[in-house]
């Protein structure tokens, strides 16, 4: 069985600095994968490399059998990978509703996610639809960013640091929407520093450190100690 998204030997540089060292990762249809790791582990670079924002120096990314490694960001979006970028990155000149609609800019044909369905998923976005996107609270902005990505009806949704800078109660509210997103058939990769949240939402967890995946497994199979060690890079040996 071939995976929906297959990342093989992915390597990326920022100038002379190597940020990713041959990362391998697969995502099955409808699955949710979490990538955890400390700051600077290469999680965001991995997301940027997959979506065509950061340049890949070696390795490959394949979506449903089609190689997409060298495509630019717009081409990758139209093939079905949407990203909720770190820091949300809403468009300040656009209202909440326009921020959602722009997510469907390159969309062709029909799909499950429509403006109505996204507004039903996060009702506050309907209430505040005429406000400037950046006038909302951090958590509400995150909902706009997720909704905006869903509007393209992606096969794969990448979420980069959803919980960054948000209160625990808000994080919980945002992750409460995930079962519905999974039910729509979208496969998800979440990048998280919040390990507890990542373990709750994912079928499979990868821990990254210094540009490499150092630990992988199902949440139930991974011991607290193993995760702790992989996350902080300490060894009991």
């Amino acid at each position, binding site marked *: 069985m071939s995976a929906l998204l297959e990342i093989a030997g992915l390597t990326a540089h920022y100038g002379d600095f190597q940020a990713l060292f041959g990362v391998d990762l697969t995502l099955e249809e409808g699955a949710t994968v979490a990538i955890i790791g400390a700051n600077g582990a290469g999680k965001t670079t991995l997301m940027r490399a997959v*979506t*065509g*924002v950061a340049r890949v120096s070696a390795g490959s990314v394949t979506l449903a059998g089609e190689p997409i490694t060298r495509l*630019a*960001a*717009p081409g990758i*979006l*139209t093939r079905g990978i*949407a*990203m909720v*970028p770190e820091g949300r*990155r809403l*468009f*300040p*000149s*656009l209202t909440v509703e*326009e921020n959602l*609609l*722009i*997510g469907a*800019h*390159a*969309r062709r044909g029909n799909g499950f996610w429509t403006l109505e369905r996204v507004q039903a998923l996060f009702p506050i976005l309907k209430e505040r639809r005429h406000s400037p996107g950046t006038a909302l609270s951090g958590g509400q902005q995150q909902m706009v960013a997720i909704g*905006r990505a869903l509007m*393209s009806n992606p096969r794969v949704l990448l979420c980069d640091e959803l919980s960054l800078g948000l209160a625990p109660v808000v994080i919980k509210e945002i992750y409460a929407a995930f079962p519905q997103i999974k039910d729509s058939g979208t496969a998800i990769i979440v990048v998280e520093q919040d390990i507890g949240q990542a373990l709750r939402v994912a079928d499979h967890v990868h821990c990254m450190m210094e540009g490499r995946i150092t630990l992988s497994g199902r949440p139930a199979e991974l011991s607290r100690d193993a995760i702790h060690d992989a996350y902080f890079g300490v060894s009991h040996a």
Partner: protein
Amino acid sequence: MMLIDTLAQGLLLGGLYALFAAGLSLVFGIMRLVNLAHGDLIILGAYLILTLATVTGLHPFVAVVLAAPLMFGLGWLLQTHLLNRVLGEDILPPLLVTFGLSVVIQNGLLSAFTADSRKLTAGPIEAASVDLGIVTLGVMPVLTFASAVAVVFALNRLFYRTALGRAFRATSDDQTTAQLMGIEPKRIFAMATGIALVVATIAALFLGTRANFDPSIGPARLLYAFEAVIIGGLGSLWGTLAGGIVIGMAQAVGASINPEWQILSGHIAFVIVLLLKPRGLFPRAND
């Protein structure tokens, strides 16, 4: 009575300046590109209308309909083949390239059409006027002003009510994130420059029917356009219309005191606005 007449004439003249400026304002608002060849592109548009009118025998008002799509195509090609290559963090390369383009257009027009002054002839409508009791207004200046309002209105609708306008604003806000939405900034920029040159063609029609033109007068039109954009506030289209009107009225008032003061008064008004409101009359909130 004299003053009202002067202000009315100035208002209408402001419409022409707003037409010069609207394309410049649009392009600056979307890609932060200051196009130093904008004035010369307007003059190029005037020669294009003149050529089409001469060759086909059509009235300039009809010839402009043929010229507009050609100018759109020129704008598209200009952006995709030249300007997109120099846009980036550094604002100097696009300035140099558009400055060079200005020189190329002027010299190209000079070899093709000589330095002789030309004019678009619109027929009896040029001398027609309407008597409103208090003031008598020329039909052409009224048409010019009405076109300016219509152009600014249409551009605003495009900007705030259409999917293309949404993509314009998103790209202007954040190019990287716009690409994550499937937007290709270079196509968006090409579209914007194409539209700007359509507006330049409309400006060319009224410029060419109002007075004589020759290949060298572009830079002076650019200066008025610049002042209108800056008085109005960078990126605000209604502001650009207001900016054109401020310059037009200042020039008319100056000229009524002493004809030699016309041009100077416009520039003085520009300096005064800049001193009082450095970001213009209607600055964009998030700049």
